[in-house]
Structure formats: structure tokens, C-alpha cells
């Protein structure tokens, strides 16, 4: 370990990211509306970004690749949220609800 203190161990950050992943999976399966599923996917992406920065800090501390990848993840999350919310508004205008289990037809 690179020093004293609880915040200087790698495993704690990995477990926080893992807890975020588990909460995201729980939300994607359990929640009913599409907006809640999108929020849960944001949780999963944040867990991945936290893992990348922790690995960059403890395993490869001389370059900044992990932080740059986390910036890329933020950009991709923003684009994904824009597209997904546009689709959700479209579904709401057509069917007047946003519940994922009732969207059974993909015709016309």
C-alpha cells in the first residue's frame, strides 16, 4: 500500500464500485418505468468510472489513461442519456405510459 490510512487501499474503492454495479443491476431488473432503468444504468457507468480511476491511482500511477477513460465514459453517458430520453418521450407520446413491461409491440 502506498501509505497509511483507510483511503489508501485499493480494495475499498473496488468494493464501492461493485456495490454501485449491484445496485444498478437490481434497479434495471426491478424498476418498472424506463426512466428508472436509465437512472440505474447511470449508476453502473459511475461504478465503472470509479474502478478505472482507482486502478489508475494504485496500479499505474505514472500515466493518466484511467482518468481520460473516465472522461470518455462521461461523454458517452451524456450522449446515451440524450438519445434514451428522446426515445422515452416518443414512447410516451405514442402510448401515454413509459412502463417497460407493457411495450410488447415494435411494429409500425
Amino acid at each position: 500500500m502506498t501509505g497509511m490510512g483507510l483511503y489508501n487501499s485499493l480494495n475499498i474503492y473496488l468494493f464501492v464500485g461493485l456495490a454501485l454495479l449491484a445496485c444498478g443491476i437490481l434497479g434495471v431488473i426491478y424498476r418498472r418505468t424506463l426512466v428508472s432503468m436509465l437512472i440505474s444504468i447511470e449508476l453502473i457507468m459511475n461504478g465503472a468510472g470509479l474502478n478505472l480511476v482507482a486502478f489508475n491511482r494504485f496500479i499505474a500511477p505514472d500515466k493518466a489513461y484511467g482518468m481520460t477513460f473516465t472522461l470518455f465514459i462521461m461523454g458517452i453517458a451524456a450522449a446515451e442519456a440524450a438519445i434514451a430520453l428522446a426515445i422515452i418521450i416518443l414512447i410516451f407520446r405514442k402510448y401515454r405510459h413509459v412502463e417497460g413491461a407493457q411495450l410488447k409491440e415494435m411494429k409500425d
Partner: protein
Amino acid sequence: MIFADIIFIIIILITLAGALMTVMYGSIIYALIGLVTTMFGIAGLYIYLNAPFLAMMQILIYVGAITVLIAFVIMVIGPLHKKPKEWTYPLKLIIAAIVALFSFFMFAKVVLKAKWTVLSTPFAVTTKDIGRLLFDRLTFPFELISLLIVVAIIGAVMLSLCSRGEK
């Protein structure tokens, strides 16, 4: 040192409580507030990881942009707590908890088993290094991200225009 540990544990507890609130609350707007709490907690963890630039980007992009976008959509689709129930039958909760706990313990076993070679060199990456890397070595992915965001904006505008044309 002890003081920093106490703050660190509080930040971790805030992050986990926000994540659980995001998943468990019935109303979507409360889930969104839980997401904001989680984002602030993760920004605190980034500061502990010697990445203050990423912490500021986390607050600016997630709390400032994505959460506000989701809040606008919640305003458009109306108050969902007037619908019968956001929650479905409890069997679905049990199944989802089984899947989430299974994945959690499987990856926890991997994390505890793996031997990471933690280097003892001091961490000296600054914001200047991130910018230099972004415009020197990773220029092509950076441009691709900008192209992706432009395509996403045009796609969102086209989707809304198409739905208006259908009406």
C-alpha cells in the same frame, strides 16, 4: 489521519445510501435525488483519489447536465406517483435481489482473490497531464467522442421532429 478516515467513511456511506435510495424509492423524483447524492459521493471519492479535475467534471456533467435532463423528462411525462403502483409484485424484488447479490459476491470473490501489484511510487498526475494526454496520444478517440455527441444531438432532434410529423 484519523480525521481523514472518518470523512472517507462518511463519504462512502453517503454514496451507498444514495445508490440504495435510487433503487428502492417508489417515486422517480426521489430516485433522481438519490442519484444526485450518489454523484456527490463519487466526486468526494475522486478527490480522495487525487483527481480533483474529475470530481469537478463529475459534478458539472452528471449533476449539472444529465440529472437536469432527466428532471425535464420527468416533468414532461407527468407525476408517476398518481399511477397505480410503481412497485410490482414482491417476487420480482426477490429475483432481482438474487441476481444482484449473485453478481456482487462473484465479483467480490474475484476482487479478494486477485493479487494487484500496487506500486509505491508517488502519484503525480495533474490536470496538465490529462490535457496533454487528451490532445497528444488520445486525440482520435477525443474527436470520435465529439462526433458521437453531435450524432446524438442530431438524433434527438430528428426523433422529436418525426413524432411531431406523425401527429
